[in-house]
């Protein structure tokens, strides 16, 4: 019954397609004869949205308020409140207690000794996970200390810790509210989607206006960026708590709060851990940008090193960020894993005493032996000359073949594609995208897509938006062509999983500029270098989802296929691939999101698109255009999201049909 109904619907849809297609083709051929209004957005139609936004924000930051307390007073108080714990952590971890300054500077108490901290954390790692993680922690700690990065790393850690905790608490709170009320959820989801896709450069200026300069502004900007995955994960995790468990809680007479804290959250921990992982990764990903507005630490050191073209030093500081990210991530993952497998009694009181003793003893000894407080400068290791030499060597010896690749790619592929997009009338592109929305997701999707397109057109950012689309499309195509097959290939080889994971984490947390500037030396300023930057960042989710998609294919299906005599290729083509399709499509979605979020960084090597508009208005101090161009990036992301989600839902339905 349901089957015939579905078939009928499919038939009705395909009749619609048959009518729409010729119309579409006719329109495409008529395009060259369009009047000017239809080919490029007319000037009179463009609304001065960026002026409105700019004025609105200035009013908010200067005059808005109730009863003598201005909005800015509130945000300033928040900033001051956030600064206190950061300062305190910095004193303990990085700087020690310092009185006086200049010629009168006196170090009254040293920070915690690097050896003590490393050993104490290694002990935690040993107890939570085992030898492997302990070794990783020791190596990371030694790396930071011996390469002279310890103080910077601890400064970064101080603000990262606070960011992660804030994003965790806020994310849980918002997620729980959204979970309880469906109406709130729709609203929260929309806001989170925008927050995740608006490039961070576009709200840096408003953040500075409201929170002032310094670590707390960086904190707030970072939390805005890292919050959405935590909220999404919380809602998903709570929703996945089995109904029977909730009923049991109700029957035993738990109050609402008790149900939440004693039943729902503990059960949801494994899925919450995924959200936490994303928060940690995204916070560390932000370290560079946060350092531009006063967070200091490793990110600032990377910027400084690159500014004097010391690629090696930039790479070393960048790897420091990676080390922090990996250790933090593995520790939180291990803790969450233990929680969900009910592994208790791993950490005993004896361990607490031992850890404290390690911290205190080494810190006290650092009064007598200064190298325990700070590794002496003369003994720091560096590999910087090697990396700098390597870059120069490649530049001298391999420039010509590399330049030939760049020229061919630029002249044969990139420029023609860009020119085609720019020459296509905006109404035609709009029509095609709306049609795609309708075909994949029905009327609702078509309308959403149309509204988003109109926003881009009417705010006057159509042309830069098309350049962004061209760059993103090429980058995503390349990232998928490399990432998905590689992910699928790796998924059946478990012994590669760990190292591949480490490489992916590195790709996502190593500041892009670290490898972008050497790329500029070889490929010059311009779109090709930008393409490399975007691909290298967007390839990580492609690989991850390629692996995840294959992992979750139900084993019964694979066995059934083997029993009915399928060759490995047939099994892959007709069983594994279709059943992984929804996950793979989500992977495409994430790849697009990552590529779009890299546009702003790509602007740093000289592109001419939305990311550049955002970056330029930041450096010029113009609030309005920055935000509106940023919203246009979000619009592109949301259009892609709508289309791909509809496609994924369709694939999932389709998949269900076959195997129903």
């Amino acid at each position: 019954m349901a089957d015939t109904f579905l078939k009928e619907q499919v038939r009705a849809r395909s009749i619609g397609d048959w009518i729409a297609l010729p119309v579409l083709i006719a329109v495409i051929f008529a395009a060259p004869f369009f009047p000017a209004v239809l080919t490029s957005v007319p000037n009179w139609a463009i609304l001065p949205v960026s002026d409105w936004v700019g004025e609105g924000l200035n009013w908010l930051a200067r005059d808005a308020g109730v009863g003598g307390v201005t909005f800015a007073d509130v945000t300033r108080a928040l900033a001051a409140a956030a600064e206190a714990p950061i300062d305190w952590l910095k004193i303990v971890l990085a700087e020690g207690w310092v009185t006086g300054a200049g010629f009168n500077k006196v170090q009254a108490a040293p920070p915690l000794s690097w050896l003590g901290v490393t050993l104490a954390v290694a002990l935690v790692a040993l107890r939570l996970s085992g030898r492997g993680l302990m070794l990783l922690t020791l190596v990371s700690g030694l790396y930071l200390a011996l390469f002279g990065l310890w103080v910077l790393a601890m400064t970064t850690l101080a603000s990262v810790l606070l960011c992660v905790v804030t994003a965790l608490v806020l994310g849980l709170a918002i997620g729980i509210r959204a979970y309880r009320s469906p109406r709130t959820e729709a609203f929260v989801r929309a806001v989170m989607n925008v927050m995740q896709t608006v490039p961070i450069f576009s709200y840096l200026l408003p953040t500075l206006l409201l929170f002032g300069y310094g670590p707390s502004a960086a904190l707030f900007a970072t939390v805005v960026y890292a919050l959405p995955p935590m909220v999404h994960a919380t809602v998903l995790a709570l929703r996945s708590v089995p109904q029977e468990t909730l009923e049991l809680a109700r029957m035993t007479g738990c109050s609402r709060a008790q149900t939440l804290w004693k039943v729902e959250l503990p059960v949801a921990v494994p899925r919450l851990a995924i959200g936490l992982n994303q928060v940690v990764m995204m916070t560390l990903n932000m370290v560079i940008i946060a350092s531009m507005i006063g967070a200091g630490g490793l990110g600032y050191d990377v910027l400084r090193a690159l500014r004097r073209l010391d690629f090696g030093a930039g790479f070393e500081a960048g790897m420091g960020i990676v080390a922090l990210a990996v250790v933090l991530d593995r520790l939180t993952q291990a803790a969450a894993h233990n929680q969900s497998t009910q592994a208790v009694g791993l950490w005993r009181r004896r361990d607490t005493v031992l850890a404290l003793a390690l911290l205190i003893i080494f810190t006290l000894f650092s009064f007598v032996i200064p190298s325990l407080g700070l590794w002496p400068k003369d003994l720091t290791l560096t590999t910087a000359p090697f990396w700098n030499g390597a870059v120069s060597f490649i530049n001298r010896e391999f420039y010509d073949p590399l330049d030939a690749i760049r020229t061919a790619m630029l002249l044969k592929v990139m420029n023609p594609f860009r020119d085609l997009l720019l020459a296509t009338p905006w109404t035609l592109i709009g029509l095609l995208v709306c049609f795609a929305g309708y075909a994949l997701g029905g009327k609702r999707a078509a309308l959403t897509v149309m509204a988003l397109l109109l926003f881009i057109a009417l705010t006057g950012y159509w042309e830069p938006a098309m350049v962004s689309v061209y760059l993103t499309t090429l980058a995503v195509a390349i990232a998928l062509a490399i990432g998905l097959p590689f992910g699928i290939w790796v998924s059946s080889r478990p012994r590669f999983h760990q190292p591949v994971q480490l490489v992916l984490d590195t790709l996502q947390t190593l500041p892009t500029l670290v490898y972008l500037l050497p790329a500029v030396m070889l490929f010059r300023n311009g779109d090709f270098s930008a393409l490399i930057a975007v691909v290298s960042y967007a390839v990580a989710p492609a690989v991850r989802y390629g692996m995840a998609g294959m992992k979750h294919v139900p084993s019964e299906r694979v066995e059934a296929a083997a029993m009915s005599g399928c060759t490995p290729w047939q099994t892959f083509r007709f069983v594994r691939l279709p059943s992984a399709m929804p996950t793979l499509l989500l992977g495409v979605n994430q790849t697009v999101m990552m590529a779009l979020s890299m546009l702003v960084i790509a602007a740093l090597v000289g592109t001419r698109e939305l990311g550049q508009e955002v970056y330029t208005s930041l450096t010029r101090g113009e609030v309005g255009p920055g935000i509106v161009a940023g919203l246009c990036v979000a619009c592109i992301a949301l259009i892609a999201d709508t289309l791909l989600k509809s496609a994924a839902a369709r694939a999932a339905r389709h998949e269900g049909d076959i195997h129903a």
Partner: protein
Amino acid sequence: MKKTLITAVAALSVGIVTPASAFEPESDQTIKLMMADWSSMLINTEILNIILSTYGYDVEKVIADDSARYPGFESGDLTIALETWQTTQDAAFTASVATGKVLDMGELGPQAKEDWWYPSYMEEQCPGLPDWKALRECAEAFAAPETAPKGRYLSGPVSWGGFDEERVEALGLPFEVVHSGTDAAMFAELRAAYERKAPIILWVYKPHWAPSVYDGKFVDFPKYEPACYEDASWGVNPDAKYDCGKPEGWIKKMAWAEGEEIWPCAYDIVRNFTMDGDEVGALVYEVDVEGRGVEEVAMEWAKENEAKWRGWAACAEK
């Protein structure tokens, strides 16, 4: 053992404190020094930090972007900046001073220069240089595959302005202007080309480490006058503006206006704070080329020039 430790701690924490003078700062409010991300500003700001701290002021260094600084100065989030370059910040700075919330604290000393620049080995392929007219003849020597037969001129980030598209048009130069994304990306290309002795012509400014490390020259354009940018009939092209080189200019100190009432003596010190162009160049070289730390280099300068900066702080020394 324990006793020795405690004695050691006590000795460390009390032992070295020696008051510089009997001077008491006017206020214990924090003076916020702005730092952008280029070396000369970092070094100068650190020197000022050492001086003000020595006299007991509570000082904090705040990292802020070059152009994103003005709201901060107008609201008092930032107190003092030692470097505001006329070449890029002229309009924004003048507008900010006009609000009355920001003070012009006078020139720092070094003169900023920026313009088209080429490495000396390019003179073999384009013998007429540094005269700008030579660029008309040998643009092809500077071409890249995607710009040929036109030359490729690497300009600064879009946000720097500079009117290079207009200049190319007005002077009839067969060049295509390509904007670099950032300062670092721009000099990365210079370094790559210099290592291979490959053709390049780009926007260079000083004080900066590049012109002291790489051998090259600025192009001699018709000298800038304000009329060149405002009046089309001025200069070699009677129908176009921008038919000249880029302006050279001051580097000024700026401050939050209300701070004058709070720390008059500190403001006095900042007004007296001046550096010599070559002196700054040498300090920048130490940091950027020798790879030494900013704080180390600044402290070394402060020790060697103690008499000089104590002279700036007459109001605190009496």
